Every structure is written in C-alpha cells, then in structure tokens.
C-alpha cells in the first residue's frame, strides 16, 4: 500500500509552484514543508486559531483545513506575498501601532485583514472585528490590531515615526526593534526550521490520570515499520531523569518510569523518518496500561487516607507559605465590621498560539537545542542534567517564541529531542500538536480560597485572614513559588496591620500547574477585591473611597514588615481613576434608570493590584554585555528573552540612554547561551527592572570606558559613525578610529558587562522580611452590562491605571496592559481547562477580537528608587485587577457575586436565580 501522491501546482504569491504530495495533505503542510513558505503559522490544525489563514483566489481560508488538491490551479497568497519590495500599508501600520507582539498570529491577521481591505478600504471597527473574528491572539488584547487595520485603510505607507534622539530613547514610543520580521513572516519560530537529515519524533503519552505501564515488543514494533529509527524510554536516559524549575523540588521525569502520574505525561519517544512518523498511529504502540486510583480534587487529596501522588510528600502537600503580622484573629473579632467569602478558580491554559516546537543537533560534542523558550539558561541546565552532559556541552539557541506567559519557563521538548539526537547522532525535530501542548504543559493553579476582611467603623482595615489551597497537579513545577508569593500579596496594596495568610500547594493527578502570569496572585486578588466590595457595602462607603483610604503610601510597612520608603504608586493610580469612576457610575445609573426593569442592567467594578518584581527572597541576577565593534555598531548581548513583551526594544532603549549612544546604532544578539550572558528568565515581571538595571549599569560602564579613553569628563557627548567614535566636550572634539584599536577579550573595541541582583532578604517563619526590592501597582475599572435573562456579560469599557515607575516605552507598556486585560477577561468569563475534555481551542475558549472592549490606559509614573530610570515591572500586574473588577461589576449590576470562576452565563444566571429564591 503505497501512499497516493500527485503533483499539485498552483500560483503562490504570483509565482507558479508545484509539489508532489498527497492530495489530501493539508495546504498548510504543503506550504511550510514542501515549499518553504513558513510565514504561514500553525497553531491548532483545526481551524480554531486562524494563524494559518491564507487567501485562495482572494478568499480567506484556514490552510490547515484545505486539501492540497483543492488548491490546484488557484491563486494562493500568504504573508510572504503582502510586501512588494517594501512593507504594505497594513504591515507598516501593524508595526507603527505595536499590533504585533510575539508575532505568531500576525501573519494570520495580516492576511485576513488584507482580504477585508481589498474589498473595503475604510472598514468600521465592527467590520474589522467580523473579518478578524477567526484569528486568535493571546498577547495583544486585539485593540492595537483593530487600530492598525482601520489606520492602514486611511494612511499612506511609510509614515514611520523617526528614531529617538540620542539620550531620549527612554520614554519614547519606539517601534519594536525586532518588529519587521514579525510582519513579513520571516521570524523563525520553533517549528520553522528543520535541519537536513533530521529525524521526526513522536511522543507517546499517558491516556490515564494515574497508571502503571509496561512496554511490549519495542524492537519488533520498530522492525515492522520501515523508516522508524528507534523507540526511547526512561531506561535510555543517561542522566538524572528529573527536571524542575526549582532545584530542591525537581521531581518530573522527562519520560515516566513505569508509572504515569497525569494524563498526557510522556512515557516514550518514537523517532523516525518524517514520512514514517506521519504514518504512525500512536494507538498501535506496544504498551500495557494498568490504571491506578487517582485523585483530582485537592480537598480529597489532603483528606485523611488519600493516596499519595509522591511517596515522600505526606498529605499530598508539596509546600506551604505563610505571612503573619500582628494578630489577625483578634483584630477581626474586635473590628466594627467584617465580611467573609470563598472563591474557587479553574485550571487556566496559557493557550499561546505557538505550540512548543524545536530541534536538537550536535555541533561537534556540543548539543545545540533551538526551541521556543522563556529561560535559556534554565533549559540548558535541566537538559544537561537529564542527558548526563556538562552544562557547557549544551547550547540553547532560543527560537522566536510565540507567547509564553509562564509555561515556556519549564522545559518541554528540549530533553526529548536532545535524547534522540544524543542516542542516534542525528538531528531530531519535534513540534507539539495543540493537543500535546495542552495535555502536557503547565497550567494556572486552580485555587480554593477563603478569607475574612475586617475594618473599623471609619473604614480603616483592621485585619485580614486568608487561606488558600492551590492545586499544583502531579509535579512541583512552580508550585512552591505560588505558595510563597500568594501570602505576600493576598492583602493587596493596602495597609493591613493584622494579617495572616497561608497558601498550600497540593498535589493531585491533574495537569502540572506552574507559572502563569502572576503566580497565584491573580487568584488571591479575586478573593481580596471581592471582599473589599462587600466591606464597602456593609460600611456604606464608596468602593473606590474605601480603597483609597487604605492604600499603601510611602513610609508604610507591608504585611511582611518591609518599609516602602518611596515609589508607592497605588494612591496615584486610584486618584487617576477617580474622575473615570464618577463618570462610569453616573453613566450606569443613567442607563439603568432608562432601562427601568429591563433585562439588561449595567454595572461598574474596580479592583487594584500590587506585585513584587523578581524572585521572592531568592537571588535573581541578570547580566548584560554591550560592546562597540570595529565597524561602529553597538552590539547588545540581550539575554532577556523577548517572547513578545518587548524586552529586545526596552532593554536596548535603557542601555542606549545609559551609554549616551543613539538607539539606531544598536544591534542585538539574542539569548543564545554560547554568546550571551545569563539575563535570567522572562518571568516575574523582572526583565525591565532587573535586566534593565543590568543594561543600565552596562551602558554606563561602557560610556565610562570610552570617556576615560578619550580623557574627557562625564559631560561629554559621544557620537558614533561607521568605524568611528566622535567624542565632544565644549570646543574639544576627539575622534576615535575604531579599526585602529585592539580588540578586548570579548572581541570589541570597548565593552562592558554588568550584573544586577535585586537586594532582598529571606523571609522568616512568619514571612517577615524583604521579599522584593521593587513593587508595581495598578487599578482597573470595568464597565459592563449583564443580561439578566441569559446570564451573559457584555463588557463596555475598561479603564486601567498602572504605575510603571517610568514608561520606558509607552506603546509597549500599553500593549502589555491591553494583553493582560484580555487574559483577565478570559479567566473571569470563559476559561476553564478540563483535562481530557478541552484539549483544543474550540472547547477551551479564550477571548476573541469581539470579546475585548475599548481600553483606556493611564500610565502613572511614580519613580522607583531602585529601578532603571525609575522603572518598575508591569507584565503580570496588568492581568491581576481585571477578573475581580469584572466580578465586582457583575455584582454591581445584579446584586450577586459569582464565587466560582469562570463566570459563564450558566453560572451567572444560576447565581441570580439563587439570590431571587433566597429573597
């Protein structure tokens, strides 16, 4: 039975092409694998994400759903065909508006929008939404995409903003430096490269929550299938078959050893020629399963007599964190008013549009792994440990990363492709399917929380008691971080003199819960901020006023006893929202009065956030290197991986102004572990602050070296020209011919490398100490309408005030805010990952372009004394207030609090009916 193949020809971006393929091959695969047109991206292979949108005879279709035969003789246009020597007006508009973040969805949006603009050059917002509703983005929150499409129809090409003047990069809305590749489809993501002669790899995964397994005749399985190279199991792993992001807790095998602890856990690898792997049905793999009892509910997992997920973790408790200050119980008992509540949240999937992908290949005796990642050095160390290699024999070369949000901090395919390359000597490639990605990688911890908040009659908070169980799933991942971060943050940015907060990370046989934008703080903030509203109602105080009255101020002590000397911006954020709050309340009142007893009722909600930047009480250094090449380029070794958030641009802006050099003279070298020092992980909202601080120090050190060489004072100006530095001070002008000078040990004429580690201290047994050196603050107002007959929620507007210390790049900061809000909307209203049931992007719902309302961003700049140019972190803060503000607005509209997330129409209506029944 030989596979049917045909020669299929069509016109691709104006040129005739043909390929000999199966007539039912997906057009997307033909474009990418046969014709090298990798600008068309794959996010789901099911028509759910639209990343693979192409035009066929001018009509937008998902290339992943079109048989190759149906393209025969037709005109196919991909992202590669949009630019014609220069960027199209639409591509330029995307760049100008910051509409591309990670860039994985960008080709799909550009192609779908091109189809719209070709027939309607001046579309309305609604027309844009209707045309782009089939493309998912997880980074941007869609608002800048809408603006870019509308603007593209109105303006001529080439209206790019000029680069900032020397010394004025910080604070400028610089277009992202790595943006052109994202809008032309030339950025190389993990699945976009395939070394010649590479083996494909298929992962065999557990279909059971908890099961023992044994293998059948593996040799026979391979022998019977021409083209298969080998099967690998845990027995083949030469090193320590345990990985984990926190060394002492590392517990996850790269391939399970006889027992699988969660559905989706990898148990074996099949390596072979691409066609042989494509023809393989994993259900034919010889493995015998013996299902074991399992536990999915954390309450059952901690109950007496529950089976243990890990024998050495009694009670299924991975770890717990505590912060205690004053006497919370006594203060609550003595307070004038108190309110209590519970909140339950769901597993939330990161749902980046790029499933994990990459390859491994040996370069001499060094294993090179090119894959998407948020943490190259951590990948290097974990991969080396599993494979029994010294870390310096593993080189991680980050591919462009199509979103991460925390999940691409943990290794996924790196040790797997590494093992195949190590054992076979051939390159090995692996691109996860959407189902692989969803079933096997980490999730946001489901939380089960209860709390009591008490205040004096004047509205001053007297005490807060908080306890939460966080379902950390089968392996540790970032469970310890969540357990430690939550108690520090559960009081919000409010002065809370008496406080007791505990959080436990509880093992179950559910998916591994790890890092997801906020490490448990978004969940805890839902608990706190809904109680603030309940307390305000009981006290008869305006909800914003209650928050302002208790907002932390300069000189206050946090719940960990840390004195915040300066830079506390929550008061400024809440003050900035005050006029918007008054306007929103008045608008809602007017609308509700007009609607009378109608079905639709408006509501307004508010919530705050604070968030410590960087690791909690642990070392967290970044190192940045910068050098001047003989040709006169400023080369920035920028290891703070840009997963779309913009660190390539922001770190360069900081370094440029610190060095007093023009941003346009900078070239970037990314986080390749062979060429770039460790700038830590892209996580914990730390890159702008920690790596930015290292970049600031490196920039200043580089400047110092040049000034010293030129023998001028710190007032001097440095200009850079091809092959030349020109240093001016007053009338003096010194010209340095770069190619006449010797190179230093790093290969530069001048260079500097500086590290920065935030000054923190360990927390004591009561959680007292200095967990973070810098905090960021924010608050958001949500305006919405609830349909009380259907329980549906329509968001009308979100107003977000975030204290970023200093907005290094206001446009990128806005992009972070809008994107974080979109994820908060998803968490509040629709996202519910049910293992085994929602392992795709049509059963697991994330917000579409029609689900994110207009967002008004207010950037508040209360300089931090520690951060570079006063900057604070932002990436996670932005998501935290959204969900509680939505729940508070639903309560404002309906009188009921939905205490289990997501607040689906079914749950909202049930809460309304339950309240009516109780009246």
């Amino acid at each position, binding site marked *: 039975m030989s596979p049917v193949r045909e020669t299929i020809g069509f016109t691709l971006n104006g040129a005739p092409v043909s390929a000999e393929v199966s007539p*039912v091959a997906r057009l997307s695969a033909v474009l990418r694998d046969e014709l090298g047109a990798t600008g068309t991206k794959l996010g789901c292979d099911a028509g759910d994400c639209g990343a693979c949108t192409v035009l066929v005879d001018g009509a937008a279709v*998902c290339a992943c759903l079109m048989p190759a035969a149906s393209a025969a003789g037709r005109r196919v246009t991909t992202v590669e065909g949009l630019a014609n020597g220069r960027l199209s007006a639409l591509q330029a508009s995307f760049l100008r508006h910051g509409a591309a973040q990670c860039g994985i969805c960008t080709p799909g949006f550009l192609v779908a929008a091109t189809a719209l603009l070709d027939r309607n050059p001046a579309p309305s917002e609604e027309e844009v939404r209707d045309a782009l509703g089939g493309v998912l983005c997880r980074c941007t929150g869609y608002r800048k995409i809408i603006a870019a499409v509308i603007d593209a129809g109105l303006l001529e090409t080439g209206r790019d903003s000029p680069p900032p003047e020397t010394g004025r990069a910080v604070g400028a809305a610089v277009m992202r430096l790595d943006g052109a590749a994202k809008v032309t489809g030339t950025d190389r993501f993990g699945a976009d490269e395939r070394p010649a002669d590479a083996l494909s790899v298929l992962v065999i995964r557990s279909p059971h929550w908890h099961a023992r397994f044994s293998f059948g005749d593996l040799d026979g399985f391979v022998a019977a299938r021409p083209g298969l190279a080998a099967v690998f199991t845990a027995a083949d792993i030469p090193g320590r078959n345990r990985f984990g992001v926190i060394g002492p807790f590392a517990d996850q095998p790269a391939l399970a050893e006889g027992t699988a602890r969660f559905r989706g856990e990898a148990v074996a690898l099949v390596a072979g020629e691409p066609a042989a792997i494509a023809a393989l049905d994993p259900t034919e793999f010889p493995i015998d399963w013996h299902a074991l009892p399992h536990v999915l509910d954390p309450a059952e997992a901690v109950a007496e007599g529950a089976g243990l997920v890990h024998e050495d973790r009694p009670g299924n408790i991975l770890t717990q964190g505590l912060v205690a200050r004053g006497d919370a119980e006594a203060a609550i008992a003595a307070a004038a008013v108190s309110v209590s509540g519970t909140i339950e949240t769901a597993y939330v999937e990161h749902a980046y549009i790029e499933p994990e992908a990459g390859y491994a290949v040996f370069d001499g005796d060094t294993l090179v792994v090119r894959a998407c990642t948020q943490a190259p050095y951590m990948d290097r160390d974990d991969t080396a440990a599993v494979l029994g290699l010294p870390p310096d024999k593993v080189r991680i070369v980050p591919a462009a990363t199509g979103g991460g949000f925390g999940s691409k901090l943990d290794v996924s395919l790196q040790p797997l492709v590494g093992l195949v390359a190590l054992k076979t000597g051939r390159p090995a490639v692996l691109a996860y399917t959407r189902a692989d990605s969803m079933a096997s990688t980490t999730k946001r911890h489901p939380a089960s929380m209860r709390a009591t908040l008490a205040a004096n009659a004047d509205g001053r908070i007297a005490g807060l008691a908080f306890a939460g169980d966080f379902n950390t799933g089968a392996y540790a991942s970032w469970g310890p971080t969540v357990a430690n971060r939550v108690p520090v943050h559960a009081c919000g940015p409010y002065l809370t003199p008496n406080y007791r907060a505990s959080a436990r990370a509880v093992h179950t046989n559910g998916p591994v819960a790890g890092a997801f934008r906020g490490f448990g703080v978004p969940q805890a903030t839902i608990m706190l901020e809904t109680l603030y509203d309940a307390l305000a109602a009981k006290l008869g105080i305006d909800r914003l006023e209650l928050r302002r009255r208790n907002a932390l101020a300069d000189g206050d002590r946090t719940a960990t006893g840390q004195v915040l000397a300066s830079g506390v911006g929550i008061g400024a954020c809440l003050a900035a929202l005050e006029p918007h709050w008054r306007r929103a309340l008045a608008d809602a009142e007017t609308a509700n009065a007009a609607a009378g007893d109608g079905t639709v009722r408006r509501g307004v909600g508010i919530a705050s956030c604070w968030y410590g930047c960087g690791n909690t009480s642990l070392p967290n250094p970044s190192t940045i290197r910068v050098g001047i090449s003989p040709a006169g380029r400023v080369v920035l070794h920028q290891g703070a991986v840009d997963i779309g958030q913009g660190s390539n641009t922001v770190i360069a802006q900081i370094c440029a102004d610190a060095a007093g050099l023009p941003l346009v003279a900078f070239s970037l070298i990314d986080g390749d572990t062979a060429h770039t020092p460790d700038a830590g992980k892209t996580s914990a909202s730390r890159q702008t602050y920690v790596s930015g601080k290292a970049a600031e120090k490196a920039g200043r050190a580089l400047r110092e070296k040049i000034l010293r060489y030129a023998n001028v004072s710190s007032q001097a100006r440095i200009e850079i020209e091809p092959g030349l530095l020109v240093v001016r001070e007053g009338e003096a002008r010194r010209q340095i011919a770069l190619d006449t000078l010797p190179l230093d040990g790093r290969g530069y004429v001048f260079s500097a490398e500086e590290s920065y580690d935030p000054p923190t201290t360990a927390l004591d047994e009561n959680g007292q100490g200095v967990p973070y050196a810098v905090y960021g603050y924010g608050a958001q107002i949500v305006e919405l309408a609830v349909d009380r007959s*259907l329980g549906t929620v329509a968001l009308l507007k979100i107003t977000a005030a975030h204290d970023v210390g200093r907005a290094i790049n206001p446009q990128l900061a806005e992009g972070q805010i809008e994107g974080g809000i979109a994820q908060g909307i998803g968490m509040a209203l629709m996202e519910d990952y049910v293992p085994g049931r929602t392992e795709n992007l*049509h059963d697991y719902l994330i917000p579409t372009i029609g689900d994110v309302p207009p967002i008004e961003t207010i950037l508040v700049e209360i300089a931090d004394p520690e951060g570079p140019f006063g900057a604070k972190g932002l990436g996670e803060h932005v998501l935290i207030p959204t969900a509680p503000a939505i729940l508070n607005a639903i309560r404002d509209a309906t009188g009921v609090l939905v205490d289990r997330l997501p607040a689906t129409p079914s749950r909202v209506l049930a809460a309304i009916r339950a309240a009516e029944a109780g009246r």
Partner: protein
Amino acid sequence: MANYARPQGLEEALDLLAEGRWRVLAGGTDFYPGQGARPIRENILDINRLDALRGISRTDDAYVVGARTTWSELIAHDLPPSFDALKAAAREVGSVQIQNAATVAGNLCNASPAADGAPPLLVLDASVEIAARAGRRRVPLGAFVRGNRETALAPDEMVVALVVPRTATAGGSGFVKLGARRYLVISIAMAAARVALAEDGTIGEIALALGACSPVARRMTGLEHALRGRRPETALDFGPDQLVELTPIDDVRASAAYRREAAAEILRRAIRQACDDGAGKEKAA
C-alpha cells in the same frame, strides 16, 4: 490512505460509493479537525470537483442548495426573509475562513448537536436529497440527523442537495446563538424561528427549533401549536415547561437547568426577530 478518488461527475462518484467504502471529503473543515494528527487510513472520495453540486437554484416548488454550497455563497445569495435565520447562522459558523470553505450540507452530515445550520433549516422544513447508484431519496432533516454524529446516510449514499419547499418560506425569520464568547464559538444553545402573520395580525404560520440543547436539534411543535393564532405582542409569555420536546443536556458549556431556561428566552428573541423581519409582509416566495 488506501485509495483516493476525485471524480469529475456524480455518476462516477456514486459508482465508487457502490463499489467500496469511502469517506467523503468536501470543505474539509470537519474532516481535518476530526482527523487530528492521526494518519488517514480510509479511502477518500474528494467531491470538490463535482461542480454540479455547487450553488443555489429555485424550482417551481423549492429552493435547492447544492451539497457543495459554502456558507459564504449562501450569505451572498439573494433569498427571501424566511432564509434570514439561516444566513444569520451562516455568519456564526466558525469564522469567515470557515464560512468560505465549509459547506451547508457538510454541517448536517457532521451531525454535531451544535450544528449551526440545523435549527434554521428545520424551521424551513428542509429535506436532504440523497443519491446512490440505485436511485435518489429525500429525507426530512429531522429524520436525517439521528443522533450525535449519526445520520441516515447508508455507506453507498451521499448528500447531493438540501431542499427547502416553497410552502415553508413564508414570513420572516430569526436566529439567536448563545455562547460564551463572540466569535468562533460552539453554541450553548441556539434558537431559530420563522413566523408568518395572518391578515388580522395573529400568528398564522410558526416554526420553531432549538439546537445545541439536546443530542439532535429539534422542532418545538408543542409550542408552535400553542402560539398559532395568538398575537405576537402577547404570546411571548411562555416558559420552559412549554418546551415539551426539550430534553436538555448537561456539559462543560452549561447545565441542563440553564439550557432549559435560556432556551425559552432565546426562542422568544428569535420570534421577535422573525416578527421584525417581515413576518407580516412576506408570503411564501
């Protein structure tokens, strides 16, 4: 894939179906997601060259929607207001990308409980025209979809058209799809209504259907009967207990109790839409 065929004519396709087991491939929008990463092992009958199955035509007594007609083609076609519910559903099928490739008939053959096309076609009394080498038959839509992923098609048959009798095209129509997000959403519940008012302003003809609430979309004939002859302004006070055909399902998208209550509400809204859509003006077209 054992065999692949891309016939140029219907006779050839029906001969192949008579002689072997084939899986029919049209728009591909359900075929590929269902396949996932698994290798294709079945014989594939690609009907994308059967041009005779494309397009919408009008006969003396019916509208005929060829089996390869896409949702986008349906949206662009000039049809009477009784089809507005179907067009509204068409705009909610996945996304523009899906509507450009997916066929109306394929939506029914896939037999998902949440098939967007089913309720609006039910209120049009649509039938499915089925062909085999031995001959043709016409099956009412209500009998064609038998259960979740189950149809009345025999292995040697294929759908060639959907047929809407002109007797069922009077009045205006409305469609409401209820989901947890705006686009690309699988329904929690869907309602379609077709209403034609009598001269005196009472409800003359009424057809109501619910989808995504039970394994198969259903007409609500009990409620239709109760509303016929009443004035629409005062007839919409019915409750969930009047949806006697409804046996709602409980799943990740919503509880059965929610579906029961929401179904009545979206039916009311669909009826209002139908009345606003020219229920009083349009006679059978």
